């Protein structure tokens, strides 16, 4: 039986312009996250995927709702929770005053690794991610694919239990995407829980144990890729996706899964 890792309960997020609600980005999202699974978050632009993962990473607070970890709110154990989460954002937010290698070591030390441990972990990850030739380079000197590899490596420096990847393969060549797929698959093999947002349906289908479709701030469907195709009698995930995005009256998933 799969062990529950996180419970997301009725999360809403409003963006304000002064006191006026500018946008209701999330309108009551509830879902469970199991240990060691890869959950693919799908949705069109502006669906609320990035908002949800930034709340999961504790970067932004929800407007209402709760996230439970080990039965208690993550906001009551914020620092311990943060120490087991690795967040790879969409935008490469990397310190330009340091080389990629130094960035990795600094990040590791900020998460409690000693200098020696951080150096060893850096070497280990540089090998796994083929970053060795670029450790002394600045972020501006490497290609988009290596930036993404670096961001994932940085998120893994402190050996997190939950890794959040926000569109890690967007804008990359197909062969680099496939290399990153291997990286993400290896995280699953290590028993790390992964939340992956993506626009690519093939990527979501290949990598995810379960797929969660978010549309207009709500969870529309959540299930394994095989079950989704079977239940909706579609040949591909793309057809399932289009059915739910195009049909505003399609059933909205509202319970825990």
């Amino acid at each position, binding site marked *: 039986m799969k062990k529950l890792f996180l419970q997301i309960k009725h999360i809403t997020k409003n963006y304000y312009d002064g006191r006026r609600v500018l946008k209701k980005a999330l309108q009551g999202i509830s879902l469970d996250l199991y240990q060691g699974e890869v959950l693919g978050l799908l949705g069109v632009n502006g669906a609320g995927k990035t908002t949800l993962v930034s709340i999961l990473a504790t970067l932004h607070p929800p407007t209402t709702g709760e996230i439970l970890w080990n039965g208690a709110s993550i906001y009551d154990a914020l*620092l311990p929770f943060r120490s087991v989460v690795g967040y790879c954002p969409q935008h490469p937010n990397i310190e330009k005053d340091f080389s990629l290698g130094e960035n990795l070591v600094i990040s590791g030390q*900020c998460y409690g690794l000693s200098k020696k441990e951080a150096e060893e972990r850096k070497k280990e990850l540089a090998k796994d991610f083929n970053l060795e030739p670029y450790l002394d380079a600045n972020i501006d000197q490497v290609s988009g694919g290596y930036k993404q590899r670096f961001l994932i490596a940085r998120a893994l420096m402190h050996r997190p239990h939950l890794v959040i990847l926000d569109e890690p393969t967007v804008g990359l060549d197909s062969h680099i995407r496939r290399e990153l797929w291997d990286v993400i698959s290896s995280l699953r093999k290590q028993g790390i829980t992964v939340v992956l947002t993506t626009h690519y349906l093939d990527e979501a289908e290949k990598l995810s144990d379960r797929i969660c479709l978010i549309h207009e701030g709500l969870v529309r469907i959540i299930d394994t890729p095989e079950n989704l195709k079977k239940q909706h009698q579609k040949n591909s995930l793309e057809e399932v996706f289009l059915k739910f995005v195009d049909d505003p009256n399609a059933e909205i998933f509202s319970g825990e899964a």
Partner: protein
Amino acid sequence: MNGWPVFFQLIRKDLTVFKRSFWKKFFDTSILFITNVLAFGYFLQQEGAHEGYAAFFVIGAIASFGFIEIVGKVGIQLADMGGDRTIFHTLVMPIRSRMVFYYMGISWAMTSILMSILLFPLGKLLVFTEWNLAGISWWRLMVMFVTANLFFGYFALWLTGILKNMTDLNQLWLRYIAPMWMFGGYVYSWQSAYALSPIVGYISLINPMIYVMEGMRAAALGQAGYLPFWVSILMLWIFIFACSLHASRRLRQKLDCI
């Protein structure tokens, strides 16, 4: 678990960056310092400024030049918030957001201290005979120097919180910093302002820069002729608390963080 290990790592990181560019920045600051001291300290005496004015001016310059380094940090931070957002990586680390903002203020103050501390020997060299070191209360000077730079650090943090973007920063120099500096006793004492008009003197007391200048001069040149040293210290700490609390609130709103 608390956020202190992250806090100290972040300060260490900033000091490493500062160390790498220190001499270049110090060279640039020195040019501004030397030209100011020569122009105001020496040429102004030819125009009738009192004897000892060079030493008076040097202390004011040493007190305030670290602020130039710090205001530069405001620009860098605003650019980051509107662009790369490296601060978001810090804000998901195991540290409370308010501690991240307090670390920024302290880190900026430390770079300001390191930048301006070398201006002491340089200032002494420039006004060699006019500045009598025997008159310095070293421990008062140290307390005031640290307090003044902490104020600069948290004042800059407050500016980061209230300014929307880089365009606002350009206006800030002309509209606020320059008047604050020039009417903050950079080239005259509070007593001179009061002698000109008591109203001007009292209005000057709402400018925190006056306490930086007066406090430093009281410690370095003797208490006579300046605002009471401990009043300057007290007022600066009030400004430090006010700036840090309001900055933390505004930055949490601005960055929408926990």
